[in-house]
């Protein structure tokens, strides 16, 4: 009994802030200035959600974000699959060294490389493009590592048999390993999509104009104002920016949770 009490309490404390976002977003501007918090907004005002699109092109930001995260994932899947395969299945000179490199890559986040990367992109005139947002993330030591683990689980005999049948290398990879590693690939995909949806520092630095701006940057700009915070609008924008991932999360909760749990397994 005490167990559920504690869990319930902590759950409420954790969930309440998000409900507060929704509550505030549905209020009229003058209604937020009450000394006691009103959790249920009444009268309800959905105008805020319409107004945010007039303030800034959030629909454009949404499209950009979708393009960027899928672009990143698409290339990541290629790079990690190829690399994970040879780390799992082949032996070659320098294997340990290269694997070490992939591991180290996990430890050096974009927060440590953003300045030089910015200068690199500036030199190649790639600033303020969606590609710029994606480039540093195309290689993923983390994904390579995860996938290598998954590949190693698959019995060697399968490959030996396949080689005898004339299906080796890339074909084996494509037809056998990848389908068998689907759960790991799915897990990695979810993690990648969610974390890059939420990126901020890097897109902030490399984008200037709304055409390529992403949702998080658009949201961040909302809070930087000369003339006073309009909390109802801010919360509506926050709700909008978090909605897509939250909706997917609520619908596919089990898969999401499994994916993130997997990330720590033997990792």
């Amino acid at each position, binding site marked *: 009994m005490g167990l559920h009490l504690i869990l319930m309490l902590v759950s409420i404390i954790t969930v309440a*802030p*998000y409900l507060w976002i929704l509550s505030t977003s549905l209020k009229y501007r003058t209604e937020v200035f009450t000394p006691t918090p009103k959790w249920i907004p009444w009268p309800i005002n959905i105008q805020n959600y319409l107004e945010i699109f007039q303030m800034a092109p959030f629909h454009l930001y949404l499209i950009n974000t979708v393009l960027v995260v899928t672009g990143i994932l698409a290339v990541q899947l290629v790079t990690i699959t190829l690399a994970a395969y040879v780390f799992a299945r082949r032996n070659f000179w320098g294997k340990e060294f290269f694997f070490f490199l992939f591991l180290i*890559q996990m430890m050096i986040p974009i927060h440590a*490389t953003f300045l030089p990367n910015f200068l690199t992109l500036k030199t190649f005139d790639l600033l303020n493009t969606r590609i710029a947002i994606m*480039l540093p993330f195309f290689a993923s030591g983390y994904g390579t590592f995860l996938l290598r683990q998954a590949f190693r689980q698959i019995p060697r005999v399968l490959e030996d048999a396949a080689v005898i049948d004339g299906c080796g290398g890339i074909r084996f990879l494509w037809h056998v390993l990848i389908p068998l590693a689907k759960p790991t690939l799915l897990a990695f995909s979810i993690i990648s999509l969610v974390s890059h949806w939420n990126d901020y*520092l890097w897109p902030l630095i490399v984008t200037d104009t709304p055409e390529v701006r992403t949702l998080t940057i658009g949201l961040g700009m909302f809070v930087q104002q000369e003339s006073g915070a309009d909390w109802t609008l801010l919360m509506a924008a926050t709700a909008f920016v978090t909605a897509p991932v*939250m909706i997917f999360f609520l619908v596919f909760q089990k898969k999401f949770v499994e994916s993130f749990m997997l990330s720590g397994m033997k990792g």
Partner: protein
Amino acid sequence: MKRMFRLPVYSYLFPGLFFMAVFTFFPVFMSAYLSLFRWNISNPSPNFAWFSNYLEVFKAPLFWLVLKNNLIYAFTTIPISMSLALFLAILINQKMGSVRSFYRGSLFYPTMIPMVAAAMLWVWIFNPGLGIFNYYFGFLGFPKIEWLYDMRYALIAIIIMSIWKNFGYYMLIFLAGLQGIPKHYYEAASIEGAGPWNQFRYITFPMLAPATLFVFVVAIISSFQVFDQVFVMTQGGPGDRTNVLVFYIYQHAFRFWDLGMGSTLTTLFVMGLLIAIWLVFRVIGKRVYYEV
């Protein structure tokens, strides 16, 4: 036998290595190189200046304040988040019906939203007059704190919201680890007369060692990556009491346009990060049951 076309091994590695080389490794060397130059508004072209940037960094009291802020942040968020996560993971791991997914989802969802969204929300929650934090906090008898506007409390506010944001992920990792512990270990221990605390100490904790190590390393790395919430909530203030390393680098590079100093700070950051991780693995990693 092997007549089919087989790509040379290194070509499999090439795509990943290429991007890593250009966007992860080369930048490390580039910032180390640039850190030896004075390159800012007063020096629009880079001037070689040996280690004068480093001297300037170490002489600036603000740099040490920034480091101190990062350390305070790390030494509070890491233990608190980890213990909270472990505690809740153990609770959730107990026998219960489908309500488990409700608890799990409720505690984990903050990981799904962008840090900037959480930051916006918590600016509103921490508003001294109108925010719900002070309102409910007041019932516990605490005075109304000005939170993000008070030099003494701004960093604490950031710590509180960061814990809220991150503990769910750590909890999941621990949960995964817990589920990997065979139940019969506990059964055997019960039969031997071991109580819950001893079961935790001799079964749970050791078997969770890989998970704990993972969470610890992730927590350390992410504690030095703090940026989004500072940028949105306090811009490093008031009085630089929430200025953290990554924000400090950003300020130098993109506010003051001091690219030389920015590179110097970046290089120090990378060095610190690598040393910290090496230390962790050296000291703790060896004692963990691990297959490589």
